[in-house]
């Protein structure tokens, strides 16, 4: 199922949640909507689901305008951040709910629910109540419930946001595998760039109600359209007034042409990686450089030494590489 979102705007009282947002999502992809909280990403997801009505703009699913179609008629699976489990129903009844309200024949419900509970590894807990499950189990139940009606579009609103780090790590890998197995288009909202980078085919960065950039994780990481995207997708440091990735800085003891001279203030060993913090000779904020342990040993650099820092060529400005941007999409 492909999704086209066209010029979507939504205001809550005085707050502009979305301003003229245009997004394209191809069928079968796992897309992350990434951004800081309050940036409008959940509103976008809820409008696609039909849980929120936009002030203006349209949502097309497979080319059909569904902007005025009720959520119950969109054939969508939705997973809420806080699970939205039906607290008075057992796990089994939660998962069966969507099938029951669609008057599915009983034997078919039984088969489908049992299959889904196996898929989410809850087959032994069918008779428990949501309050008797851990957070991770509840979220897996919520996923099974959403998948029961065989949606061709699965939407997840910060699905792992309320879980602890270890469970979150497990579930995100599992979501990737699940997406590949059940053949749906999946969109999930997150504020965790690592989560987005790790499992998605496409990332849409939303900030202040606007799309900053859309593209593959590599495109966004290597060729961010602006400082915001660059800073949001990974660690950055400022070298000669320009934002660069700490691992994209070349360190040399010999004065290079165009290099920024700086004095080493600190060397922090973090196992395989070593972090070098240096202060520019002409003053200003400290520069962080990420090096491997081998590189540091080969350089034989110590605290107090003067080094010359150059941005290494792996990072290039976006325009030079020709990656498609939202504005380019709108033009075409």
């Amino acid at each position, binding site marked *: 199922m492909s999704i086209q979102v066209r010029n979507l705007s939504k205001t809550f009282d005085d707050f502009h949640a979305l301003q003229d947002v245009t997004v394209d999502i191809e069928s079968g992809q796992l897309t992350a909507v990434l951004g800081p909280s309050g940036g409008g990403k959940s509103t976008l997801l809820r409008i696609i*689901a*039909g*849980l929120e009505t936009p002030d203006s703009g349209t949502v097309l699913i497979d080319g059909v305008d569904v902007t005025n179609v*009720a*959520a*119950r*008629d*969109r054939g*969508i*699976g*939705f997973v*809420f951040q*806080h699970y*939205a*489990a*039906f*607290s*008075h*129903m057992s796990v089994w009844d939660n998962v069966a*709910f*969507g099938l029951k*309200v*669609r008057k599915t024949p009983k034997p078919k419900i039984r088969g489908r629910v049992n299959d889904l509970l196996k898929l989410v590894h809850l087959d032994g807990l069918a008779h428990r*109540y949501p*309050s*008797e499950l851990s957070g991770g189990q509840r979220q897996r139940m*919520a996923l099974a*419930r*959403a998948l*029961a*009606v065989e949606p061709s579009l699965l939407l997840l609103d910060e699905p792992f946001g309320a879980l602890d780090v270890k469970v979150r790590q497990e579930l995100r890998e599992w979501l990737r595998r699940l997406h590949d197995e059940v053949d749906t288009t999946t969109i999930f909202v997150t504020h965790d760039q690592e989560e987005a980078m790790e499992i998605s085919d496409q990332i849409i960065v939303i900030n202040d109600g606007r799309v900053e950039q859309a593209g593959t994780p590599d495109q966004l990481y290597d060729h961010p359209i602006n400082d915001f995207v660059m800073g949001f997708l990974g660690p950055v440091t400022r070298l000669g007034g320009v934002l660069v990735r700490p691992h994209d800085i070349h360190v040399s003891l010999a004065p290079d042409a165009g290099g920024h001279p700086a004095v080493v203030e600190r060397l922090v060993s973090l196992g395989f990686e070593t972090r070098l913090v240096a202060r520019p000779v002409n003053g200003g904020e400290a520069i962080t450089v990420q090096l491997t342990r081998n590189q540091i040993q080969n350089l034989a650099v110590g605290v107090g030494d003067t080094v010359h820092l150059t941005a290494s060529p792996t990072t290039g400005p976006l325009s030079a590489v020709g990656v498609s941007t939202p504005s380019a999409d709108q033009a075409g």
Partner: protein
Amino acid sequence: MGKYALRYSILAYITLLLLVPIVMIGYRTFQHGVAPVWDALSSPTATHALQLSVLITAICVPVNVIFGVTTAWLIARHKMPLPWLVNAMINLPFAMSPVVIGLAVYTLYGRTGWFGTYLFAHNIGVLFTWKAIAIATIFVSLPFVVREVVPVLEELGTEQEQAAEVLGASRLQSFFQVTLPAIRWAVVYGVVLTAARALGEFGAVNIVSGNSVGQTQTLPLFVNDSFSQFQPVAAYSAGLLLAVISLLILVGMTTLSSRRRREASL
């Protein structure tokens, strides 16, 4: 020592003020054995009064449940216009003396009242019938269900309803299969309070019923009549019956709420 002084003095206060009088009614009722009590309660006047009180309660509870749950849902989901005004109006029966409520109903349905003029012209009897008693009692006990259900609905939030909607449930399916089961204890609690109030209502009913013996006399009116006509055994017996029914309702309520707590803590 000091920390026990406070709790035991309060305990003594409650006992003296609440428990002792009720025990005294029990004592006075059975002072001359069970036979006079049985005679007093099995008289046609007394049984009719009990039946009428039960009928009024049976009308009042479902009306206030349907109205109360609907109103509570509209308030909790911010779909009510002028919410502050609606809230104040719903609390009105709590703030007003039941006698005043009785007078208000009387002025409306009396021969010269807005509704009364029409009703009397068409020979429809409302005032001084069970209908007027029911109207006054519904008025008096209106806030209970709303007050119980609103906070539970607010705490419940809308996520479960939204989840049901995305899964394809209609509004009705969502309400009966998701919302109502989630608020059922609050509804039961409201029902219990409404029933207790409807059964015991005196002030408003006294004015609109006409208090016609064997026809429009409810159990609390019967107690009052017996007392003022120097029939202490009948007054005490019926009074005790009312107290026992209320006590049973209260015990039921306490068990329900402890069950609700257990369920919530699961």
